[in-house]
């Protein structure tokens, strides 16, 4: 078993297969996104539970399909189930996942309490990925996908995405 930071246990043989499956909208492994909730191997049956980030995320069906394909190609007999409880939280994104998000140009979710404050109308302090300035502002709480908010840097003018917290 491989135990992740988010306490999820994944069968050793299934780990590399699932690690190679990315979110179709963001080049980050679904394991690092915290979308894999369980992965056990019983004889040759790979039982995998995945969870959506947002209820309406159109990538969810695609991810289930990709997981099935990857497992089949690796010689397993997949049984993929989608679960919603407990609900996904940005706290489940691993450190590696956060780094991958930033590399792709999306500011990773800051700790949950600061986001709660933002939801209550208080300000976020996010660092611009382009120039490093913290002189940034939120343009909209809703971005190009359900999971992102739009920000802009007031110093260099760069617009950027923020993976908003869901806690």
């Amino acid at each position, binding site marked *: 078993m491989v135990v992740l930071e988010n306490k999820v246990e994944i069968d050793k043989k299934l780990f590399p297969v699932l690690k190679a499956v990315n979110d179709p909208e963001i080049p980050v492994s679904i394991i690092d996104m915290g979308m894999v909730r369980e992965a056990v191997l019983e004889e040759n049956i790979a039982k995998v539970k995945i969870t959506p980030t947002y209820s309406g995320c159109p990538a969810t069906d695609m991810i289930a399909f990709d997981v099935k394909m990857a497992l089949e190609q690796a010689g397993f007999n997949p049984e993929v189930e989608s679960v919603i409880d407990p609900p996904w939280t940005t706290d489940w994104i691993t450190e590696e996942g956060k780094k991958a998000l930033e590399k792709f140009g999306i500011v990773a979710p800051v700790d949950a309490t600061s986001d709660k404050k933002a939801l209550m109308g208080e300000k976020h302090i996010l660092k611009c990925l382009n120039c490093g300035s913290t002189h940034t502002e939120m343009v*909209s709480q809703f971005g190009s996908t359900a999971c992102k908010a739009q920000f802009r840097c007031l110093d260099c003018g760069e617009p950027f995405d923020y993976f908003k917290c869901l806690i």
Partner: protein
Amino acid sequence: MSNTEKITPYPKAIDKVEFIYGIADSSLILAQRLSELTGHGPTLETDMALTNIALDLFGQVRSYYQYAAKLIGDNKTEDDLAFFRTEREFKNVLLVEIPNKDFAYVIGKQFLYDQFHYLLLRELQKSEDVTIAAIARKSIKETAYHKEFSSNWIKRLGDGTEESHKRMQTAIDDLWKYSDEFFYPTAADKKMLEEGVGVNLEELRKEYRSNIAEVLEEATLEIPELEYFQKGGKDGRHTEHMGHLLSEMQYMQRTYPGMEW
């Protein structure tokens, strides 16, 4: 089919399914109205926000319908419930089927709905039905964002320019008569409350009114005085707008049944 074979009404009217329709249909119809604005929002950011909210709601509705379809059995799917029910079989509140008219109406409807939706989900998390409680726990996180979005716009438009204030007040005055139907329990609501699955809707009214008043006051908008409120949607009696909305929403599946992407 022989004459003796009994035709069961579709879908089978069971209390829990009716109860789920009462929750999910409102979100579906509101999302359908919101999606009319995709590509037509007043600004790019607002366009994306409204589309995102619609997407969240569609996602939540899918979870409810998947569960309802399982309860009905008979190989029914979520799509059957969305695309093959007739107007009378939809149990959404009247508020959500009102046309968008202008941006103030869009925000007004969203605000009156989000404020209720949030309270409903908060209570549904305690439901003894584990699936419904799980959907509520997932949905409330998203609805918290919706509620903040619509409340902020109410304040921005109400306390904005003379024109935006006038339009927002007009929308609130007009929509107000639809703001009480949420709390009217249907037979299915009552039955589910008895079974520990549902929510005591009437108990939420006071908190809703006070939350709404707080935002409207900050928005410098007047709270309309009204004694008679409209209802009927939750019992399947809709406004003239509903049929038109459904004909557009259901067109593809009615024309090409079972069509998939």
